C-alpha cells in the first residue's frame, strides 16, 4: 500500500496552526461571498421598493409551499453537516460517512425540487425574455417590472443552486476519503461545513424575500 501523503504541509509549524489558517481562509472567502450575494440583495431591495406592486404580484406566482419544503431540506442538511464535523472530530469514521451521505441526499433532494420548480415556471412562461408571458398580470400592470422580479429570482436561485452543486462535488470527494479524517486531522470536513452552512444562510434570506413578502 502506498504511503499516505503527510497531512501537515511543510510551510506550517503544526497541525493546529494549519487548521487555524485553513478555517480563517474559508471565513475570508465567505466574507467575499457575503458581498457577492449582497450586491444581488441590494439590487433587489432597490427594485422591491420602487416596483412594490409588480414584485408582490410576481412573487405570488411562485410556489411558496414547495420552497418551504426545500428550506426544511436544507436545514436538515445543515444539521447532518454539523453532526459530520463532530463525528470527524471525535474519531467516528462510520458516523462521519453516514452523516456526509445523508447530507448528499438532502442536497440532491433540494436540487431536484428546485429543478422541478424551474421547469414548472418555464412552462408557465415566467422566464424573462422572448417567451415571457405579458398577459398574465392584468390590465394596467407594467409587465416589464414583473419581468424584472423574475430576473432577480432566476439569477439569485440559480447562483445559489450553483453553489450547492459545487458543495455537493466537494462533499462527494470527502465521502470517498472519509477514512483519512481523524481527531488530529479533520480540517477538510470542518472547512466544507463552513461553506455548506453559508449556502444555507443565503437560502434563509432568499426564501422569505422572494417567496413570502407579497405586500
Amino acid at each position, binding site marked *: 500500500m502506498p504511503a499516505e501523503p503527510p497531512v501537515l504541509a511543510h510551510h506550517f509549524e503544526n497541525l493546529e496552526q494549519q487548521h487555524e489558517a485553513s478555517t480563517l481562509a474559508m471565513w475570508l472567502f465567505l466574507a467575499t461571498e457575503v458581498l457577492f450575494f449582497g450586491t444581488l440583495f441590494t439590487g433587489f431591495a*432597490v427594485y422591491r421598493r*420602487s416596483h412594490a406592486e409588480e414584485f408582490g404580484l410576481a412573487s405570488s406566482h411562485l410556489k411558496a409551499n414547495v420552497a418551504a419544503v426545500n428550506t426544511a431540506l436544507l436545514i436538515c442538511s445543515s444539521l447532518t453537516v454539523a453532526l459530520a464535523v463532530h*463525528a470527524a472530530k*471525535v474519531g467516528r469514521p462510520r458516523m462521519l460517512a453516514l452523516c456526509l451521505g445523508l447530507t448528499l441526499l438532502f442536497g440532491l433532494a433540494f436540487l431536484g425540487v428546485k429543478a422541478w420548480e424551474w421547469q414548472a415556471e418555464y412552462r408557465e412562461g415566467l422566464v424573462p425574455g422572448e417567451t415571457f408571458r405579458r398577459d398574465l398580470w392584468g390590465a394596467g400592470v407594467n409587465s416589464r417590472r414583473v419581468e424584472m422580479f423574475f430576473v432577480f429570482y432566476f439569477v439569485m436561485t440559480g447562483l445559489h443552486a450553483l453553489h450547492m452543486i459545487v458543495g455537493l462535488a466537494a462533499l462527494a470527494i470527502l465521502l470517498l476519503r472519509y477514512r483519512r479524517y481523524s481527531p488530529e486531522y479533520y480540517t477538510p470536513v470542518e472547512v466544507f461545513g463552513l461553506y455548506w452552512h453559508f449556502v444555507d444562510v443565503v437560502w434563509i434570506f432568499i426564501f422569505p424575500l422572494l417567496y*413570502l413578502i407579497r405586500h
Partner: protein
Amino acid sequence: MSAERRAAPVAYWVVFAALLVLTGVTVAVAGVPLGRWHAPVALGIAAIKATLVVLIFMHALHSARLTWVVIGAAVFWLMLMIGLTLADYVTRPWATY
C-alpha cells in the same frame, strides 16, 4: 475519550428544531395582514435563523478573535453597501431607473 464528548452537542439539535420552527413561523406570518411590517418581520426572523447557524453550526461562538473580525467586517461591509445605496434611493423623489 469519554462518552459525553463523543455524543454530538445537544445545541445542534436545539438549533435544528429552532430553525424548523422559525421557518414555520415565517410561513405562517406571511399570511397575516401586517401591512408594511411584512418585510421587517420576515427579515428579522431570517436574521435570527442566520445568527443561530453562524454561532452554533459554524462554531463562531468558540472561534478565534480573528474569525470574529472577519465576520464583523463582512456584516459591516454588507450593511454599508445596503445602507448607503438605499439612503440614496429613498431620498430621491425622481426615478432614474
